């Protein structure tokens, strides 16, 4: 089936010689410069052999002098190498040339699809057709650039129709080796318009491809042949589509990248009030979020209602949930790498959005044309003003304010050197009518220097500084206090990329210094009953080195192998308490303490983290993927709630808290059909994490100077399988995924007091075995689309009271074992209508409206169950539903 004979002619001829003899015919140089067809015909005359072919197939093929001395068979093989023409011998005298129709058919289908979808095709030629050396291989090198900013686009998919597909390197460059000929090459990059080039590759040369960002603010990049990306990307890797995100129903009109992550297979969240997310049964602290290379601690506004990132300021976001490359480290479960937008180097423009809760605006343009550019964005809430208009109860005394802003200043010293200054700041103020205000902020700044040594070697040096902190203030005179927490984390890293034939090497070093002020509480009025407490500062240093190689063994097999070496030191000045051996750690068993001088290491940990991932293409439409990673996590989130809240404590590893060590094995099968119209995938994983921390029953963690007495160390295991189906093309597009996964923990000790549930495995707080996500978009007309999503998750585990008792006139509650009950299942439907502006390319303002309905059937999903002491002194359970009603919203987005 593979090779069909397109045409077969049998001519009657008297045969005296053998075909094999003809093929063994030595080329003497007389063939030089002749076309293949011409030469074969001349041989035919002088022998009894016959060649069967269609002239136009062989027309472009010529003999060059280097064939002299070869047999005809060798020369033919060489000339035909890389073409779709092959030959066979029949009946000893006939040499039949055949053409593989598959490629032709695919090419025709593709051309057909270009026509039907009215795509633009740009024609380009490298070299001159006349200079073509038939049968030779040409090398093309090139760069994929942003057509406006001229910035390189790393990770762009370059797909040669009827051939292989590759991905551009971190500096946007790529290399392609192709047999001489004409090709359709598709260039794709998230949020950018796809570009199809009809490329005549005749000689070695360079090609620069400029992609334009999707002009319609809200349009989705319609990517055909997306199997190029899904089939060849690494296991567990997902490139988030910013444009797609903008079309989904929103929560109060706010476009939210974190919410998009929460609907990916294998990712769950515990409810609305959690910008944090759980990846494959991992904790919310196990996700590394990088913003221009610097980690972010707080990713939410208003206790998690909205993500802290303005989606308009994001250029790309890549998410890894398995097979995490050696480049990343420090968090066990996932990596989200956000790269902010760079300003336009050619002209100024602005965009923005107006929603019911916040508005955002961004500007970008050249400061010096083609040299220096600026991108600045700011998003701010005005909900506070709206709350002040309310007279209902005490609500008008509440305060909810947030803003985030980003700035990127880039300067190109030359084509090869670029310096980028990036800044990001987010801040929240949340005030309760009871005079308590919470304020938290996360700010980072980084300076990045990119240098390309040549087309193959590229380096990046990043120097950054980040700070995360919160401040809780109570102004009520009798209880006035000010509680402060802060982490500052200067970061330095240097990466070096080198491309060597089929190898892409990436290596680098990095250091992060963590300076943590764990907490200070001080009374702020003379009458205040609050006792001042200051917990000693902590400082630690994390160092890392990594080396990885992405090796494209052949067109079918690619693997990425590497390792990361990391170290973490908990440094003085600090005081470590020692506890009575053979006793559970508690305030009562402290026997001594050791003091470490400034800069002295109280404890140092080392980690060796092997990483491996593999992609094997079964065909151009399906692939098998494998991944393994081991990651050390040196900083733990000590949160007394299930979600990330601003009032959390990040605890570095120290004398008592060992680093979490996570091992994950993942495997996946991907298949796409109908030229990428449908995509099916199944991925499975098993993850085991050592040294996770969980609470001792009823422990208190806020301003606890001996946290080791409040926390227990255990192990976590998670396993699951994720099914996903997508339809990428057509008026109705969408995806559905189902995940079955378990997330269990075990905390076992010789002391009953230091075991949880008698040392048995118990479900973690976010163990939600069954998860279904359904997302769709239906184009009603070119300008109007109807989108929606539906989410279902098993209710998460909680600890509930079995009964009450009265002991010594004190009412007490008899609780179940940890996490032995579940809250009701969570499900929710959201719908949105997106109305785009007109589709003319040249218009002053490109605007669109999004009308969105969140929680359409107003389900009161339980977020958490908590206890309030009632009049009888009994702790009664109450459920908190964050959004117990349907929430409509309307927002407007524009681009100038």
């Amino acid at each position: 089936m593979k090779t069909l004979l397109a045409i077969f002619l049998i001519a009657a001829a008297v045969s005296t010689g053998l075909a094999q003899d003809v093929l063994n015919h030595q080329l003497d140089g007389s063939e030089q410069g002749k076309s293949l067809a011409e030469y074969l015909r001349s041989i035919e005359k002088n022998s009894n052999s016959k060649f069967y072919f269609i002239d136009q197939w062989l027309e472009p093929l010529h003999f060059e002098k280097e064939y002299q001395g070869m047999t005809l068979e060798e020369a033919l093989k060489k000339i035909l190498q890389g073409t779709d023409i092959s030959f066979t011998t029949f009946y000893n005298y006939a040499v039949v040339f055949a053409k593989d129709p598959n490629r032709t058919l695919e090419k025709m289908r593709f051309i057909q699809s270009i026509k039907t979808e009215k795509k633009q095709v740009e024609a380009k030629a490298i070299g001159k057709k006349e200079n073509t050396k038939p049968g030779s291989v040409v090398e093309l090198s090139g760069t994929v650039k942003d057509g406006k900013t001229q910035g390189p686009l790393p990770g762009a998919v370059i797909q040669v129709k009827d051939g292989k597909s590759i991905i551009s390197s971190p500096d946007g460059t790529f290399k392609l080796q192709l047999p001489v000929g004409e090709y359709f090459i598709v260039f794709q990059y998230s949020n950018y318009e796809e570009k199809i080039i009809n490329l005549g590759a005749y000689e070695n040369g360079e090609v620069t491809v400029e992609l334009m960002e999707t002009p319609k603010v809200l349009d989705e990049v319609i990517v055909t042949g997306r199997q190029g990306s899904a089939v060849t990307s690494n296991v567990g890797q997902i490139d988030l589509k910013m444009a797609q995100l903008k079309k989904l129903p929103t929560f109060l009109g706010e476009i939210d990248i974190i919410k998009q992550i929460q609907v990916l297979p294998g990712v769950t969240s515990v409810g609305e009030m959690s910008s944090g997310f759980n990846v494959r049964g991992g904790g919310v602290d196990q996700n590394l979020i990088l913003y221009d290379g610097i980690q972010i601690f707080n990713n939410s506004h208003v206790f998690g209602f909205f993500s802290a990132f303005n989606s308009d300021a994001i250029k790309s976001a890549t998410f890894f949930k398995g097979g995490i490359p050696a480049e990343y480290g420090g968090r066990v479960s996932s990596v989200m790498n956000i790269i902010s937008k760079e300003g336009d180097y050619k002209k100024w423009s602005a965009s923005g959005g107006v929603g019911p809760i916040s508005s955002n605006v961004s500007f970008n343009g050249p400061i010096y044309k083609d040299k220096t550019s600026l991108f600045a964005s700011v998003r701010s809430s005005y909900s506070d003003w709206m709350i002040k208009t309310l007279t209902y109860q005490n609500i008008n005394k509440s305060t909810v304010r947030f803003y985030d802003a980003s700035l990127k200043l880039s300067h190109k010293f030359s084509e090869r050197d670029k310096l980028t200054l990036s800044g990001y700041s987010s801040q929240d103020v949340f005030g309760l009518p009871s005079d308590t205000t919470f304020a938290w902020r996360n700010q980072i700044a980084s300076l990045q220097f990119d240098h390309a040594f040549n087309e193959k070697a590229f380096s990046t040096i990043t120097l950054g500084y980040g700070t995360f902190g919160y401040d809780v203030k109570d102004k009520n005179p009798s209880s006035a206090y000010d509680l402060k927490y802060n982490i500052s984390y200067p970061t330095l890293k240097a990466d070096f990329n080198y491309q060597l034939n089929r190898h892409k090497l990436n290596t680098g070093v990095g250091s992060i210094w963590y300076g943590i002020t764990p907490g200070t509480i001080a009374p702020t009025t003379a009458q205040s009953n609050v006792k001042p407490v200051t917990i000693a500062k902590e400082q630690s240093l994390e160092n890392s080195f990594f080396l990885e190689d992405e090796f494209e063994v052949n067109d079918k097999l690619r693997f990425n192998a590497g390792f990361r070496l990391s170290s973490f030191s908990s440094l003085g000045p600090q005081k470590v308490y020692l506890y009575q051996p053979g006793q559970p750690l508690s305030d009562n068993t402290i026997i001594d303490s050791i003091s470490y001088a400034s800069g002295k290491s109280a404890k140092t940990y080392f980690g060796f983290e092997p990483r491996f991932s593999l992609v094997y293409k079964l065909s151009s439409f399906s692939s098998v993927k494998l991944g393994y990673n081991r990651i050390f996590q040196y900083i733990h989130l000590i949160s007394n709630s299930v979600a990330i809240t601003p009032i959390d404590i990040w605890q570095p590893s120290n004398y008592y808290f060992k680093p979490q060590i996570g091992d994950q094995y993942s495997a996946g099968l991907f298949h796409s059909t109908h030229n990428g119209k449908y995509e099916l995938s199944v991925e499975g994983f098993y993850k085991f994490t050592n040294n996770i921390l969980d609470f001792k029953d009823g422990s208190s963690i806020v301003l606890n100077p001996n946290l080791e007495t409040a926390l227990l160390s255990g192990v976590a295991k998670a396993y699951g399988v994720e099914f996903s189906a997508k339809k990428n093309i057509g008026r109705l597009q969408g995806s559905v995924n189902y995940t079955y996964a378990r997330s269990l923990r075990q905390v076992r000790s010789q002391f009953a007091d230091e075991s949880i549930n008698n040392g048995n495995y118990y479900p973690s707080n976010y163990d939600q075995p069954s998860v279904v996500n359904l997302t769709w978009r239906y184009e009603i007309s070119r300008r109007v689309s109807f989108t929606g999503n539906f989410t279902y998750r098993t209710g998460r585990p909680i600890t509930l009271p079995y009964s009450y008792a009265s002991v010594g006139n004190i009412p007490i509650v008899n609780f179940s074992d940890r996490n032995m009950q579940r809250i009701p299942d969570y499900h929710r439907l959201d719908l949105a209508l997106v109305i785009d502006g007109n589709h003319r390319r040249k218009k002053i303002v490109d605007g669109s409206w999004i009308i969105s309905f969140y929680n359409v059937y107003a389900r009161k999903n339980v977020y958490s169950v908590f206890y309030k002491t009632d009049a009888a002194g009994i702790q009664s359970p109450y459920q908190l539903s964050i959004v117990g009603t349907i929430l409509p919203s309307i927002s407007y987005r524009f681009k100038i």
Partner: protein
Amino acid sequence: MKRSLIVIYIYLVLSSCVTPYDVTTSFQPAIVVEGMITDKPGPYVVNLSNTIPVNNQLYETSVVQGATVVIHDDQGLTETLVEKSPGSYYTSSIQGVVGRSYYITISTSEGNSYQSAPEKLLPVGDFTNLRYEFAQNEPGGSNHQISSTNGFNIFLDSEVLPEQEGRVWWRWTGTFHIFTYPSLHTRPSDGKVIVQLPDPIPCSGYYVFRGALMGPTGRCTCCDCWVSEYSQIPLISDTRFVNNGKVTGMQIAFVEANRRTLYEKYHLEVEQMSVSQTVYDFWKNVKQQKSNSSNLFQTPPPKTKGNLVATSEKAIPVIGYFAASSVKVHSIDMTQLDVPYPVLAIDTLTVSCTQAYKNSSTIKPIFW
């Protein structure tokens, strides 16, 4: 128009709601044990009861009757307790001795058996300087005479013996005298014009004859009551604040000052007890359970199991404690003279005094 839309909108946003959570299905019965032996003369009591479903709004405790409760010591002595009132089992002769260990065994009539961990009766230090300080948080006007945030903070200084290893358990019982007027009880009339008709409570000695209040025919048996109040949160020492065997300035109670609590005087009796590590941990968990609640971001609630275990198969779980403690007792009285503003005379409560307050009794305490 626009503004009202916004208002509706915000209302929706903030309509995240808090409602009682139904835990009916999670009910699992358990037996509750509460008892102790001290170095003071007995009799001592061990109370057995059943746990109550969480959503039982009546909080009716059902007691465990007909069980066999035996106290054992480390010398092999045993004494079987006698159920003198339903669910309350009393000792007759045994007295705790410092240095010995005690435990109890329980067999219920259903055949379940339980046992406590052996508890060593540790000595206890004494406490001094039991004192009160009046704290005025609001004006002492007539608005704040029945229920007030003004009152007495009670402090003491403790001595902690080395054997106690920093663990101290305090309990207090407050007692005050109230006087009520059940004879003046009325009920609304039927008919169109509602008037209050005399409706004396029978124990007042008054009755109604032809619509008129008559009497008294005898002594009022429900006008004079002594109300007991108990510590509502477990009071245990924080071992970090025990310095050189002393706890100074420990606040153990707040006594509300109003026209009822100070009608005659407020009597406060404080016990300081030694306590084993297991019972200390039990109270510590209960205390954390109390302080942890009413917070949306609470840590997993502590389990309050105590020092008893089931010893028969398929026995329903047990919670509670059996303690062996040395006890030191001191008391203190507070009167109207300790309040810097005039306390009004007791108000006219037209109910029986036993109904006016929980834990209210017409029997005059021996110390009164």
